[in-house]
Structures are given as structure tokens and as C-alpha cells.
């Protein structure tokens, strides 16, 4: 019961009322992802602007002399997509009380994410161009590099989640850390699919 007397005795803001809507923690992650989408959007805008207005190469894209490693990046894409499956496995496992499944899922996700990142670093060294060559090179490194930064952050979050998982944290009732970190990791995955298709294939 909420009465006038209780309201006057209460100090500070009123109690939080969640109803059945999204919780503040998940909402916070969505707002963060929203800002990230805008950040990526600005990089994509530069990329498409460069691609559309750049007529000096006779409409050829990428410019002559540049090779996009679509196959290696494709394999890397499969690795990252697989990591989304393992992430989902970890989340589903803890919801069912399967701690071993959660731990294995998180470990695999970290390993797949690391593999993706290392493969990209190796690929950067083999590209044969760098950011100062042309605007294509700059936007290529800008977009893929921005994504790589996000994978790095995602790996840091996953490392914390995995450590906590092995220290006995999380349960079927309390697994917000897995849920929110998982949402971020899936965002990184979705963004890579967009980057891969846009920068490497089309």
C-alpha cells in the first residue's frame, strides 16, 4: 500500500518501477549500442561518399592495384558468426542451470574472438597498403579497424564474464552479466557482417 503518510516519510526518489518493460541495465546497453550504430554510420557515410564521388578510377572499385582479401575475411566472418552461436549456447546453458555449458560456451567464444582478431592483424600486415595511400585505404582501415576495436572491447567483456563464470558467479535466476555481454557480442557480430559485405564483397 502506498499512502500519503508513507510518501512523506520516504526520503529520496520513489522506488523504481520496472513493470514488465526492459530493465535499466539492458536499456543502458541498447542506448550504448544505439550510439555505436551512429558511430559506425558516420564511418559508412565516409566510405560510401568516397566510393560514389571518386571518379578518378573510372568507376572501378576498389581502385586499381588494391586487392581486398575477401576469402580470408570470409573465413573470419564464419569464425565470428560461430562465436555468436557459442555465446548463445553459454546464455542458454546458464538459464537451464548448466554451468559447464556456460563455461565452455564462454571459453569458446573468447577463443573464436581472439582467432578473429589475430587473423585480422595478420591480414593487415599482408595487405600491402596503409592508411596514408589513398582515401580507399583510409576508409578501409577506418571501418575494419573501428570494428576490430569493438572486438577487442568485446573480448575484454568476455574475459570478465568467463572469469566470473569460473569463480562461481551467475545462476539461472541471476545471469545479467551474461545477458548484457551477449547482446554486445551479437552487436559486434552483426556489425561485422555489414562491414564485410560492404567493404569486402560489394
Amino acid at each position, binding site marked *: *500500500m*502506498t*499512502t*500519503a503518510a508513507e*510518501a512523506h516519510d520516504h526520503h529520496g*526518489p*520513489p522506488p523504481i*518501477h520496472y*513493470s*514488465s*518493460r*526492459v530493465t*535499466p541495465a*539492458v*536499456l543502458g546497453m*541498447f542506448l550504448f549500442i544505439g550510439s555505436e550504430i551512429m558511430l559506425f554510420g558516420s564511418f559508412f557515410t565516409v566510405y560510401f561518399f568516397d566510393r560514389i564521388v571518386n571518379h578518378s578510377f573510372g568507376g572501378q572499385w576498389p581502385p586499381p592495384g588494391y586487392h581486398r582479401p575477401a576469402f580470408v575475411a570470409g573465413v573470419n566472418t564464419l569464425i565470428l*558468426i560461430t562465436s*555468436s552461436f557459442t*555465446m*548463445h549456447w553459454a*546464455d*542458454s546453458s546458464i538459464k537451464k542451470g548448466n554451468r559447464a555449458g556456460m563455461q565452455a560456451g564462454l571459453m569458446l567464444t573468447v577463443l573464436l574472438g581472439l582467432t578473429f582478431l589475430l587473423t585480422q592483424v595478420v591480414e593487415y600486415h599482408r595487405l600491402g597498403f596503409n592508411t596514408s595511400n589513398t582515401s580507399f585505404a583510409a576508409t578501409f582501415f577506418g571501418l575494419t579497424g573501428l570494428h576490430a576495436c569493438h572486438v577487442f572491447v568485446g573480448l575484454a567483456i568476455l574475459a570478465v564474464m568467463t572469469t566470473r563464470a569460473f569463480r562461481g558467479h551467475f545462476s539461472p535466476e541471476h545471469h545479467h552479466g*551474461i*545477458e*548484457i555481454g*551477449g*547482446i554486445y557480442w*551479437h*552487436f559486434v*557480430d*552483426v556489425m561485422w*557482417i*555489414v562491414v564485410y*559485405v560492404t567493404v569486402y*564483397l*560489394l
Partner: protein
Amino acid sequence: MKSPVRSEADAFRFVLMTIGYFALIVIGYFIDHWLGLAVFVVLTAGVAWFVLGRRGEQEKPVRQAPAPSPPEQHRILVVANETVGGGELLGTIRGRAEGRNAVVLVVCPALNSPLRHWASDEDDARTAAQERLDRSLEGMRAAGLEADGEIGDGDPIQAIEDAIRTFRPDELVVSTHPEGRSHWLERGVVDKARERFALPLTHVVVDLDVHRS
């Protein structure tokens, strides 16, 4: 409005849909550049249609029968906000409660702007609703009614749904401003509540301008 992505599982499904979406575009693109563009346009339009259609679908009423209340009590759920102190509402509640062992729960939805709602800035809205509720409860108790109250979700339908789960009412009373001045009527709140909840519903119109004059 409910967020379509509310959990890791939803986000994972979004990953799968993204894969399908871009796979079709890429296949189309490699067959013919213009086909790729056409696939992109068609898929994007399809997604937009699905999302908009789904929003409409979510708002479709789902009949929800409440669990029966104890037979000796008649439980009345009242949903009102700015009109919660109106004389018409008090009269209707007294009429519904007359001759019965009635228990009244008044729910005041904390009306808020969408921006403030999404920013979780509900303090002012809840405080204002609480003040109206307190005044209303005093009036009801003074009239001899056994009344209790709580602040509900900003969405009145959601507030009713929440209260039904905990209060198990036998009937519902919804109070609004008159037609033309009521946002709730404009949004079809009363009709939606009638269709969605398997409860007798009384709609009370309170004209606060008449009270003031």
C-alpha cells in the same frame, strides 16, 4: 511500446536474420548488380512492413481472464489519472460498491513523455500521480470505501495488466476526460481494455472544467 530486442536470445535471432538478409543481397548482387539492388529494396521494404505490422499486431487485444477473487469480496479496480479526484468517479465507485463487501484499488498511471520515459526519468510523473492518488484515496475513505492505491505503469493498459495480476479484480472502472480532451480515448484505451480483459468495464467521463467552474 515494447522493445523488440529484449534479451540475448533476441539479439542472437537478430544475428541470424542479418545473415539471411545480407546473404540474399550478396547472391543477388553477384548474379547482377541491379538484381542485388532490387533484392535490397524488396527485403528492406519487407522488413519495414514486418516491423510496422508487428507493432500493430502487438497492440491487438489479447483476452486475459483474471483468477477469481474470494467470493465474499467484490474487488473493483479503478484506473484514472488526472480525473482520479472527480465527483463522477467517486459516485460511480460508490454505486458499484453499494450493498457489497467491496474492496477498491485505485491505480494512477504515471503519465510521462516518451523521451522522459526512455530516459527512465519518471520521478516527477510518479510524484504528481502520487499526489493525485493520495487526495483521491482520502476522498474515498471519507466516503466509507475500503480503498487502496498504487502508481502504475505510464501505459494505462500495461498498468491494468499489472494490477490484474496482483489484485484479481471482479470489475474494472476506467475514468477519462471527455471526448476531445482525453488522450486515453484518442488512443482507444477504453476499447482496448474492454477487448483485452475479460472483466465488466465501466467507463466514467469526468469533466474537470465543470468542477472548476
